[in-house]
């Protein structure tokens, strides 16, 4: 279950990332508050050309417009991610996966645990025995932040940009400071998730890409003790 939802989320996330990037190109200016447009002072501007000639940029050409299919796919992939997340969330609570594997263990609820683990990484000390089958405190923290903070926040900020959803639930936009604040947080959150993806893939590659991939797809790996099969 964890592996199936992991890979479904991966496919949906890549689709969301690519189409989200395409949508940003049509207006690479970001604002804070309820409203913002080319006549408003931006909070920051991403220095890329735009796919609209109405947006002033440093470049004197206009990118092709890809918003139509990007928007269709963005919202469909969002549904895939949300529904997968729902299945995973229910499973995680019911099976104890969150408690056993994701939330940092109680003995690690201290800065010292983090410091020791970072030191271990820096000295490149390989994990010993039991650790190879479990996540350490840094991994648990990273996964927990992604699953319990960054993903819920990106769904919330996405919904806070929907004119019909905010009509029904105005506080979803108001609590964030407005529609444009929601859009800006949505972008920053997607950047953090991309950062996580890069670090995650790098650590998988460093710890033996083939054996880890086999473990992440099949559930176990022949040449290590790494075992992701459930109930073990």
């Amino acid at each position, binding site marked *: 279950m964890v592996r199936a939802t992991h890979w479904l989320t991966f496919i949906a996330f890549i689709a969301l990332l690519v189409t989200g990037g395409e949508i940003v190109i*049509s*207006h690479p200016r970001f604002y804070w508050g309820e409203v913002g447009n080319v006549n408003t002072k931006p909070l920051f501007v991403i220095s890329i050309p735009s796919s609209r000639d109405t947006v002033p940029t440093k470049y004197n050409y206009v990118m092709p417009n890809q918003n139509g299919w990007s928007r269709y796919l963005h919202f469909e992939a969002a549904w895939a991610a949300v529904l997968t997340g729902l299945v995973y969330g229910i499973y995680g609570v019911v099976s104890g996966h969150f408690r056993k594997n994701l939330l940092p263990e109680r003995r690690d609820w201290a800065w010292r645990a983090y410091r020791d683990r970072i030191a271990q990484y820096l000295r490149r000390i390989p994990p010993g025995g039991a650790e190879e089958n479990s996540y350490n405190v840094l991994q648990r923290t990273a996964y927990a932040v992604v699953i319990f903070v960054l993903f819920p926040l990106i769904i919330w900020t996405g919904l806070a940009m929907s004119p019909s959803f905010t*009509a*029904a639930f105005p506080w979803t936009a108001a609590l964030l400071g407005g*529609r444009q604040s929601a859009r800006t947080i949505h972008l920053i959150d997607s950047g953090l998730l991309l950062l996580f993806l890069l670090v995650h893939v790098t650590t998988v590659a460093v710890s033996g890409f083939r054996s880890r991939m086999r473990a992440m797809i099949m559930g176990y790996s022949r040449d290590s003790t790494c075992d992701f099969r459930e109930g073990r």
Partner: protein
Amino acid sequence: MNKISRRELIYGGVAATAGAAGLATAERMAKRYGLIPPDGSGIYGPGETLTYACQRILTTCTPAREFPRSMISKNPFANEIAPPTDEFKRMQAAGFKEWRLVVDGTVARPLVLSLSDLKTMPMRSQITEVACEEGWSYIAEWIGTPLSSVLREAVLLPATRYIVYYAVEKSLWGSIDMTDAMDPHTLLTMGMNDGDLPVPFGGPLRLRVPRQLGYKSLKFVTHITATDNIKKFGKGLGSVDPEYGYSWYAGI
């Protein structure tokens, strides 16, 4: 490799059957309650249908967000589209006295209304946000008569399912379902921020649909057709937007 046990096979089979039956039931229910959008087929069909169905279940009776007067944008962005035609410029020079709104289709009393006719109908003003699919937005006060009061004047037939609307250039058209059409915030807009609606913002007549993105708020509206069958219009996708790749329902 571990072999798939008989128990796993049975569980898998039961789950798959239940899933297929659930999907079939969901589709029948969605069709029955009008929860499938006109562009709800093809590879993006499931996503569009989920979005539209959820919005119709969750947000049907909730009015658009309104804002205090102090939040009206000082410099709204007009996003001017293609320059208006010569005919439009001629009518503009004459103060739009010849501008007509035709209301026909599945109505008992088809109407042809001038702007001054529209101004004798119940007027309403609202301070709402225009949000473009590109990401930008602004807030303005919009003054006009609710689409619903014009439709009541024309006496809608009970079979009506969608309201189709055209711009002065007939190639630009859209449609909304009855939930959005009868929403008092859906406004045949003639004024903006205490003046006449400027041409760059869609003057003399723009249909504001504040619970959807800006592209559903068509500028230069001249013709409204009520219909019981949206498939008869254009390529049958509900508006010209899906023909360019944009979704019909833009309330997201």
